[in-house]
């Protein structure tokens, strides 16, 4: 009997130990041994932060993160060219592309039960196929000292950049760039047009007499440093990075019309259909919207987090509070372009024709 009781107790203890281990957070973590998760994202700082913050965490689970860099437009082109063989597992998607993704069949539905950090996102940020990842505030970055030298007041609208004193000293985003579509749309709105009518925006851009159209944001930083430009249309993150490089720059959220000030560009993440690494991709989405990562990423990249906890903490930083619109009422005033009304190839065609004329 004692031996039977002893065996029973030993078995019970072992079963309890197994059950406890299975329920513990450590064992709840999935292992991704040998998994290479391919993430299509922007290059530069964007990629570097992910690599620094998320790669070690993924490596601790046995996997490896690989980055396929390029603007979301370029990555979308790669996705199409791959013809069903996904060249990456997760992709950064712009709000301008959500219409394209809705019309095509490239994304998998997101399983929010496996994204606990999703609780800190608003409902509209958790869509069936897309999860919000960040937002940028597209505005004007200008060199305060140079403006003083030229005797110009700080710009408040895009039209202010058409001042004759600024001929050849202004850069705006190329339509090819990450901020290109948002910039083009915002200028169309500011000039009295809208998503269906960008002709006023074309006229406004022509009046600016720009030095060039930037394709990568780091060109903004370099051009301020080299003294080639005095002002640029870019998101506040680039202005912040220029500021950190010692340039006396400030960010302005341009007045679009009587009710709208500033322009918001939203970033999304999607899991690509056909990926063999869906579980790892979902893990990545959860990590991306984690409050700590969102804060780190936003501070370095100069973007607005989507995680509400991170937004609160970011507003406490005086530099960000000065450069960005982080109060809810300010954010509500920003222009959100309705890309469901946009025919992107038509916008690109109009842009190209403007350049050649």
């Amino acid at each position, binding site marked *: 009997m004692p031996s039977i009781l002893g065996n029973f107790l030993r078995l019970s203890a072992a079963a309890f130990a197994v059950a406890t281990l299975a329920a513990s957070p450590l064992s709840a973590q999935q292992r991704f041994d040998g998994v290479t998760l391919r993430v299509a994202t922007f290059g530069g700082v964007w990629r570097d932060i992910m690599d620094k913050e998320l790669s070690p965490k993924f490596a601790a689970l046995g996997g490896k993160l690989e980055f396929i860099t390029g603007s979301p437009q370029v990555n979308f082109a790669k996705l199409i060219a791959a013809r069903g063989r996904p060249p990456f597992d997760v992709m950064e998607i712009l709000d301008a592309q959500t219409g394209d993704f809705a019309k095509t069949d490239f994304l998998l539905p997101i399983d929010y039960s496996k994204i606990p950090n999703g609780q800190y996102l608003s409902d509209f940020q958790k869509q069936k196929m897309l999860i919000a990842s960040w937002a940028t505030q597209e505005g004007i970055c200008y060199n305060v000292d140079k403006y003083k030298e030229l005797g110009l007041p700080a710009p408040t609208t895009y039209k202010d950049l058409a001042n004759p004193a600024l001929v050849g000293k202004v850069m705006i985003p190329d339509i090819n760039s990450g901020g290109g579509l948002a910039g083009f749309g915002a200028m169309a709105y500011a000039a009295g047009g809208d998503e269906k009518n960008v002709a006023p925006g074309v006229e406004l851009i022509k009046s600016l007499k720009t030095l*060039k159209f930037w394709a990568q944001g780091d060109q903004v930083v370099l051009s301020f440093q080299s003294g080639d430009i005095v002002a640029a249309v870019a998101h506040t993150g680039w202005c912040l990075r220029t500021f950190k490089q010692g340039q006396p720059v400030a960010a302005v959220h341009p007045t679009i019309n009587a009710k709208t000030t500033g322009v918001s560009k939203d970033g999304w993440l999607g899991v690509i259909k056909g990926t063999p690494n869906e579980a790892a991709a979902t893990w990545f989405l959860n990590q991306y919207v984690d409050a700590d990562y969102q804060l780190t990423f936003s501070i370095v990249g100069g973007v607005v987090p989507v995680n509400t906890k991170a937004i609160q903490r970011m507003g406490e930083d005086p530099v960000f509070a000065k450069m960005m619109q982080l109060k809810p009422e300010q954010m509500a005033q920003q222009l959100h372009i309705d890309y469901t009304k946009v025919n992107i190839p038509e916008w690109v*065609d109009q842009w190209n024709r403007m350049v050649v004329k």
Partner: protein
Amino acid sequence: MPTDIAAPRAPRFKPLNFAFLRRKATPGDEGDSRVWALMLVPSLIVFVVLLVASLGLFIEGSLHRDLGYGRTGTEWEISNYLRVFTDSFYLKCLWITVKVSAMATIGTMLLAFPVAYVIARLRSRWAMLLLAGIVASTFITIVIKVFGLMILFASNGFMNRTLLALGIVGEPVVLLGSEGGVVVGLMQFTLGFAVLLLYSVVQTIPRSYEEAAQALGANRLRVARRVLLPLCLPGISVGGLMIFNMCMGAFTSAALIGGGKVMTLPILIQRTIMMEVKYSMAATLAALLLFAVIAVNLLSIFLMRRMRAGRKVIA
């Protein structure tokens, strides 16, 4: 006998005669020619597979309608070509491409020829060192070269500070976002190749020709104009065409220095693929670029032949 010295030397190898492929080989007969002909086979395969087949594929692709998101119609049609040839936008892009390429070619050849001549005529070891330097420079990726150029010509860059300090210019010279800047970028891209090409051309002209002309009283300018240039002209023409072809297809210089403001055909093709995802239209534009390059080359060859024929008649 002196006549023996002047007699033409027999060719080292027999000229290629493909008739041998149709008849039986006899021992010791046509052996060299057959080996040489067989050596052409791998090149021919590579040429057919990589060039002819790929060209055929994209030309075939240009004959379909774009249906959006990279999809194309199955029917064959020429609507893309009609659009390209009736829309001034595309023709203007072609004109810009030809213009900057021609300007860059002329500029490159004018800069490269004296350099190539000096190196070819140098008798010291500096010649090889200079040549090695030029060869090494051609290995540097164009992105690095272009960024170097951009830093050099930045508003507060070395060139502009020097030019302003010397009072040569009143305002900084701006390369970015201009056709002039793209021309400079293309020249930087092709200069090394042009020097190497022209060096080999000048090398083939015996120095004694120039010495003989000088001995007969011609000054240096006359020697260059009447002896050197006519002898180098075929090489210059072929080299110029090669440089022109390189410039027509160049993307990086136009993209980085042009800053999106100089819409050459390679840039438009990239945008059509990447932004609009219209493969057929992009293929049509690529075909337009190809046909334009072929046309310019054929025209140049025709003009060169006419010039040569004219010169023979005058002689």
